[in-house]
């Protein structure tokens, strides 16, 4: 968490961004043929594919909840998505991320409409560079909309962090490696309720307040990207259909 790398100079970050500026984001909806809903998302150098299957009967039966659907998010990194090849299959980190993303999505999905069902959300990280859990949750939310899963709101995630005593939005790779805190946050944008929150590093209470505020602002910006991508897809449909 420390180094001689100069992460912040003259009000600009290593990659030229301002403190409250996001990396470039690109979202495409409905990119897969088999999945019931899908989304391809680029966020900086992160490349993420999300696909939704369900609601469908949960199997084996003893995993069913008679009162509501289970949301089963699976965050997975491709072996070639990181500098040193990752062994295929889930590790402890990806299992924890799968858990917190599943919990966040469950909050907004109308799970009580689908007793005994499972809604499977597959998040594949094809290229990874800081912030994959936020990018993954954001892509998953769009894929859920594309799959027609009823939700109270479209959840969205974004991180804030701290580099050289400066609270900034959306840490990049070097910032993640050498910065002093990372705060990924997911919210329900209509209510600003916090669905996911983790923090590693060192923040004073004042810095935390500032970082949380910034992360929420970032979430709202990303939320606009989500909505535009969804509209974009459905704008084209009438042409094709009629």
């Amino acid at each position: 968490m420390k180094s001689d790398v100069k992460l912040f100079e003259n009000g600009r970050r290593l990659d030229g961004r301002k403190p409250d500026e996001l990396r470039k984001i690109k979202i495409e909806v409905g990119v897969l043929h088999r999945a019931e809903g899908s989304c391809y998302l680029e966020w900086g150098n992160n490349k993420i594919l999300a696909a939704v299957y369900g609601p469908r009967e949960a199997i084996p039966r003893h995993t069913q909840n008679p009162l509501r659907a289970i949301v089963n998010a699976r965050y997975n990194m491709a072996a070639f998505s990181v500098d040193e090849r990752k062994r295929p299959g889930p590790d402890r980190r990806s299992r924890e991320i799968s858990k917190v993303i599943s919990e966040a999505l469950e909050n907004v999905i109308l799970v009580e409409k689908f007793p005994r069902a499972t809604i499977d959300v597959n998040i594949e990280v094809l290229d990874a560079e800081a912030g994959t859990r936020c990018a993954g949750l954001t892509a998953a939310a769009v894929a859920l909309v594309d799959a027609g899963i009823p939700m109270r709101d479209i959840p969205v995630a974004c991180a804030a962090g701290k580099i050289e005593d400066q609270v900034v939005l959306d840490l990049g790779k070097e910032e993640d490696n050498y910065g002093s805190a990372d705060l990924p946050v997911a919210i329900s944008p209509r209510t600003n309720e916090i669905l996911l929150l983790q923090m590693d590093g060192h923040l004073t209470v004042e810095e935390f307040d500032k970082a949380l505020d910034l992360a929420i602002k970032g979430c709202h910006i990303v939320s606009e990207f989500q909505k535009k991508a969804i509209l974009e897809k459905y704008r084209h449909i009438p042409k094709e259909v009629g």
Partner: protein
Amino acid sequence: MTVTPLLKRDYLVKLARNGRRVDGRGFEEYRDIKVETNVVSKAEGSARVRIGNTQVLAGIKMDIGEPYPDSPDSGVMSTAAELIPLASPDFEAGPPDEESIELARVVDRGIRESELIELDKLCIEPGEKVWVIFIDIHILDHDGNLFDAASLASLAALMTTRVPAERFELGEDYPLPLKDPPISCTSVKYDKVVVMDPSLDEEDIAEARLTVATDKNGDIRAMQKGLNGSFTVDEIKKVIKASIDNGKKIREQLYKSVGK
């Protein structure tokens, strides 16, 4: 969910609306905490922590191994937690599940990100030989709030650990080099009420969970939100404040227990 939890929920919610908890505690009040150290002779350090009826044992073993390629001058630490079937009728034998992985990772990050262990002092030969620290967390009795009990037991065990230099013919044993420990405090929310140090009954009906680790300056060193409920920003700020307050008291007790 069967009927019993629903009845339990109704009862606890009713109490909460009257400002009460089932065991009479205040919303921000912890159960009694007991910390015993050096409870296992084979471990380099060990501690048994009780929070109410919850009991956790942490043991530290040290060995010599290779450093990670990207930090050739640093010791290595590794944390594992086992939700062994001894501790609860709901725990099953087998490889770690999501719950025990989250528990181990949250404890691990609390220690790692706060730089509690001075890993740079645990290098023997740069790039070749460093001390490896294994933190093993054994849940003995589960009555709620495993996060805080596991974290506290790990801290107490580390603070009483002696590096077994003699066994490896590297001079005399000496205490593990440590900085100030971050204290984890966990809250849960149900029906708009937020309570600290949840008992198992409260965890059973909890909608959202938040763990906050703070240091002696009242700074935040790690956080983890869990479960499918949500928190408002104000709730989070309030939890942080209460975590700093309780963290101070627990830190004092921890220092006393390890004889500092």
